């Protein structure tokens, strides 16, 4: 989905604030929220990591930007556990004594699973182009590289295809690649010659750059 989470290259954001001697968790609830996701993933097995990422992306855009990292984290976990029928929103709100905002529902069942390839289609040095496909579901091809041309710099392992797995469907493993893009190809005159961005992409995101 072209969601608010896909922040790469967005303008209008200010300074990065670095906290000195930052603790791992700032408050107790952050640690509990962290743990509840581990519970949902590893113990309850109510959802997989791709569904979790997609649930974060499905937060209301205004909520996404206003919330801290662990509030987004909690909201995704709570949303999935409500969607999967493990808990009800009514119970959460009764216990919390107020509103518990959840993610918006998924609007698609996800991409159809492509037929697995027998072998990696691309090799190091191959010139590729990122397909300018669109989905309202989960994907990991950032908007800023869609339609852009790059070069494969590493053939990485195969992994579950997020576009399918993110919707809880049975997903194939698919080859991934690190693809290097010239900054000048991504950002026109802003990109400095020689500077590059490397993005990790699944094979079905790519086509040969003819």
């Amino acid at each position, binding site marked *: 989905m072209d969601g608010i989470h896909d922040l790469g290259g967005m303008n209008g954001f200010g300074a*990065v604030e670095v906290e000195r001697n930052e603790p791992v968790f700032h408050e107790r609830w952050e640690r509990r929220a962290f743990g509840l996701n581990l*519970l949902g993933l590893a113990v309850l097995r109510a959802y997989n990591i791709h569904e979790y990422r997609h649930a974060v992306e499905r937060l209301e855009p205004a909520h996404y930007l206003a919330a801290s990292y662990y509030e987004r984290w909690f909201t995704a976990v709570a949303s999935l556990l409500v969607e999967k029928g493990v808990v009800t929103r009514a119970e959460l709100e009764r216990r919390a004594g107020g509103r518990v905002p959840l993610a918006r529902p998924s609007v698609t069942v996800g991409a159809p699973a492509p037929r697995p390839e027998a072998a990696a289609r691309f090799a190091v040095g191959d010139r590729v182009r990122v397909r300018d496909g669109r989905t309202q579901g989960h994907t990991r091809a950032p908007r800023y590289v869609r339609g852009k041309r790059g070069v494969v710099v590493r053939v990485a392992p195969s992994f579950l295809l997020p576009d399918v797995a993110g919707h809880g469907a049975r997903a194939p493993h698919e080859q991934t690649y690190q693809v290097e893009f010239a900054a000048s190809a991504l950002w026109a005159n802003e990109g400095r010659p020689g500077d590059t961005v490397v993005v*990790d992409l699944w094979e079905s995101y790519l086509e040969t750059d003819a």
Partner: protein
Amino acid sequence: MSDPRQPKTAAPIAARVDALEGALTDAGLVPEGYLDEATAPAEDALSPRNGARVVARAWTDPAYRARLLGDGARACAELGYGLPYEESIVILENTETVHHAIVCTQCSCTAWSLLGLPPDWYKSPEYRARLVREPRALLREMGLDLPESVRVKIWDTSGETRYMVLPLRPAGTEGWSEEQLAAIVTREAMIGVARVTVG
């Protein structure tokens, strides 16, 4: 959510988290002590000290450095780091002419086992939005002014592969022990937003 004329005030976040924990606990879905045990590594085993030890070894042992750059996972395992959260790891070697930095534009993926859980600045929309587009300006703001002669290479953690930067060893550390060296290697340097410096 976008109309403040209809403010839908949420319960405090701590109360929301307590509500979920309470509901799951009362439903018998939380094994006794699970939340404490499962989260303990986040403040202990998952630490940038691990990455720092790997860096220090690579600085002092050229053969190890070569193995690390060739097969990061195996070289980390040599030092006892099994990388349970990382299925694929690539070590990015900074040189006098190439500077690497890591980001995750779509969420906040990182190599937990080597770098620890990521800090707030890494997870901020500001860092995620800006690093891929204006790396030099952003790194300068963060205190790292790169000369024109250095190429900048940003790695967006968009897939399942994780990255760690192998920083340049600073001058003035000749003869230091691995332990001394590991102590000056910061998480920021292993993400690529800082140099390792002495003193």
